[in-house]
C-alpha cells in the first residue's frame, strides 16, 4: 500500500515528449530539398533551351558570315548551293500556310463542337463524346502524317484530276487538312472548359427574357467566355506552327514561296528534321542553321503562348 503511493509521480520517469526526432528533421529538410530540385529542373530546362539555341545560333552567324538581316529577310534557301543561301522566308511562308490552312479548318469546327458539348449535348451524349475527343487528341502526329499519304492526297488527286490540275504527292493542302483535324480536339476541349464555366444564372436570365437556345449560346455564353475561346485559338495556332511529323509526311521538303497549295512546301520544323537526317557534319553552316531556324520557331511559339495567357488573364470575366 505504501509502495503504491510512492509509485505515482516518480521524479526520474521519462518525459513523454521526446523532442523533435533528429532523423525526422533531417528527412523533412532532405525531402524539401529534393522537391526544390525537381521544381528547379523545370526552370533549368527553359534556361537550357535558350542557352543552347542562343549559343549555337551565334555560332551559325559567325561561321556562315550571314548577317541577321540576310537570314530573316532572305527569300532563298539553298544550304547546298554555291555560295549557300540561308534565307528563312520560304520556311516562314510554309509554316504560315500550314498554320492558316489548318486554322481555317479547325477553329470553326472546334468552336461549334465546344458550343455543342457545353450547351446542347445531353449529359449522356457528352459522357461518350468527350472521352472520344480525348482519344483523338492522344493519337500521335505520325499517324496523321501517314493518313495524309494514304487517304487525303489520293482523294485530293481524284478530286482535282478531272480539271486537269496536277496535285503533287507531297502538298501543302493535305498538310493543312491533317494538321487542322489534329488540332480540333485542342480547340474544342479548351473552349468547352471555358464555356461550361459561364454561370448558369446568365443563361437562365436569357431564357427568362425569352431568348432561344441559339441566342443564349451565341449572344450570352460565347461573349462571356470569349477570352478563353480566343486563348484556345492562339494555342492551337502555336501547336500548328510547331507541328512536325504530320507536315514532314504530308507537305514534303521543298522550300518555296508559292500561293499554290497543291505543291510541296517546307516548314521550319521539317527543315530541322531534314538537316538532322542529312549528312551535314557538325560545325558546318548548314548544320548550325538548324539552331537559327529553331530559335525562330521557339520565339514564335513562345510569343503566341504568352499572348494567349495574357488574353486569358486580362479579358477574363470574373463571376462570383
Amino acid at each position, binding site marked *: 500500500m505504501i509502495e503504491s503511493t510512492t509509485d505515482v509521480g516518480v521524479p526520474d520517469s521519462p518525459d513523454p515528449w521526446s523532442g523533435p526526432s533528429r532523423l525526422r528533421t533531417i528527412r523533412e529538410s532532405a525531402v524539401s530539398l529534393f522537391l526544390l*530540385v*525537381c521544381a528547379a*529542373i523545370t526552370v533549368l530546362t527553359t534556361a537550357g533551351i535558350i542557352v543552347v539555341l542562343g549559343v549555337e545560333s551565334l555560332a551559325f552567324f559567325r561561321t556562315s558570315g550571314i548577317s541577321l538581316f540576310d537570314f530573316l529577310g532572305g527569300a532563298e534557301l539553298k544550304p547546298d548551293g554555291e555560295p549557300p543561301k540561308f534565307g528563312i522566308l520560304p520556311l516562314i511562308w510554309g509554316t504560315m500556310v500550314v498554320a492558316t490552312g489548318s486554322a481555317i479548318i479547325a477553329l470553326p469546327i472546334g468552336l*461549334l*463542337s465546344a458550343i455543342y458539348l457545353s450547351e446542347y449535348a445531353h449529359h449522356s451524349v457528352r459522357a461518350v463524346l468527350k472521352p472520344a475527343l480525348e482519344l483523338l487528341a492522344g493519337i500521335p502526329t505520325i499517324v496523321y502524317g501517314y493518313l495524309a499519304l494514304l487517304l487525303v492526297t489520293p482523294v485530293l488527286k481524284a478530286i482535282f484530276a478531272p480539271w486537269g490540275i496536277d496535285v503533287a504527292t507531297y502538298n501543302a493542302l493535305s498538310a493543312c487538312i491533317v494538321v487542322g483535324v489534329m488540332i480540333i480536339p485542342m480547340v474544342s476541349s479548351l473552349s468547352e472548359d471555358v464555356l461550361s464555366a459561364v454561370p448558369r444564372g446568365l443563361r437562365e436570365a436569357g431564357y427568362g427574357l425569352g431568348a432561344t437556345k441559339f441566342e443564349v449560346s451565341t449572344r450570352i455564353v460565347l461573349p462571356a467566355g470569349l477570352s478563353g475561346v480566343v486563348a484556345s485559338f492562339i494555342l492551337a495556332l502555336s501547336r500548328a506552327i*510547331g507541328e512536325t511529323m504530320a507536315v514532314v509526311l504530308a507537305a514534303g521538303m521543298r522550300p518555296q514561296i508559292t500561293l499554290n497549295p497543291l505543291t510541296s512546301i517546307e516548314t521550319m520544323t521539317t527543315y530541322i528534321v531534314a538537316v538532322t537526317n542529312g549528312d551535314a557534319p557538325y560545325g558546318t553552316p548548314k548544320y548550325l542553321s538548324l539552331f537559327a531556324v*529553331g530559335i525562330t520557331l521557339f520565339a514564335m511559339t513562345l510569343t503566341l503562348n504568352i499572348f494567349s495567357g495574357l488574353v486569358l488573364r486580362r479579358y477574363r470575366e470574373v463571376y462570383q
Partner: protein
Amino acid sequence: MSREVRGTYAPHRYTRMILGPLFGVACFLATITGVVVLSVLLGSVIAAALRRPDGPPWYALGTNATELYHFLASLVSKSQSSDPTAAGFRIGIVGSLWLLGMVAVFAIPMGVGAAVFLEEFVRPGRLRRVIQTNIANLAGVPSIVYGILGLTLFVRGFGYKSFAMGRSLWAGSLTLSLLVLPVIVIATQEALRTVPQSLRQAALALGATRWQMIRDHVIPSALPGILTGTILSLSRAIGETAPLLMVGAAGSIGVLPKGPSDRYTVLPVEIYNYAKSPKVPFQTVTAGGILILLALLLTMNATAIIIRNRYGSSARG
C-alpha cells in the same frame, strides 16, 4: 396604340424558329467530325494493313480479323528489313518499351515532386508565379525544340566528350522526360488542388509533419488524378517521333538494346522510315505498325480515362 407598336415589334418568329435547330445541327455535325475522323482513320489503316491481291472481301469480317491478328503477330516478331515481306517492328517495340520504362523512372518522380513543391511547399508569391508561368510556357514548346535541346545537351554533351551520351537510350529517355515533365506537373497540380484542405488540417493536427501529411494523406487522395495525368503523358512520350529522330533513334539497327547505354530505335521512328519508302508493299507494313502503335496508345489512354471517371468524383470528396 397596338397598331403603332406593331411597326417596331419584329419577333422574327419564323427565322428564330429555323435558325436555332439549324445551328444545333451544325454544332452536332462539328462534334461528330472527331468521331468520324477516328473511324475513317482506323478503317483506312486496317484496310491498308489487309491490302493484298487475293485477300478475302471486306465483309468477311471473321477471316479478316484472324488474318489481321496473324499479320500483326508476325510484324511483332520480325526485325527491320528492306524486304517488305521480312520487315517488322520487333526492335522498335522493344526500344519503345525501354524508353517508356526509363521515362517513367525519370519523369514521374520529378514531375510529381515539382508539383508537390509548388502546391504544398511554396506560399503563393513571386517564386511560385515565376515557376508556374515557366511550366505553362514549357508545355507549349514544340517537341522538336526539345529534340534540339537533347541533341546538344545529352547526345553531344555541349561539346564536352565526357558528358556526351551519344545516341543511347540515356539521351533519348532524358530528352523525352524533359518533354513530358510539364504535362505531369500540371496534371498533378490539378489533382492536388482537389484534395480538401480539411484533410491536411486533420493530419497536421494529429502531429504529422508536412512530409508525412503529403505522403500518407494528400498524395493517396490525389492518386487517381496523378495516375491519369501520368499515363496520358507517358502515352504522349510513346507516340513522339520528331525529338527522337533528332536524338538518334533514326538509324537502322539490327540488334536489341541490352542496356541503357546501347543504341536503339523506337516504333514511331520505324513507322516513319517505312512510310517514307517509295515501295508500295511497305504500305501494308506501315499500316500494321500504326495499328500496333494505336493499340498500345488507345489502351493506355482508355485506362487513364477509366481511372479518372471511376475515381475522379470520390477524390473530390
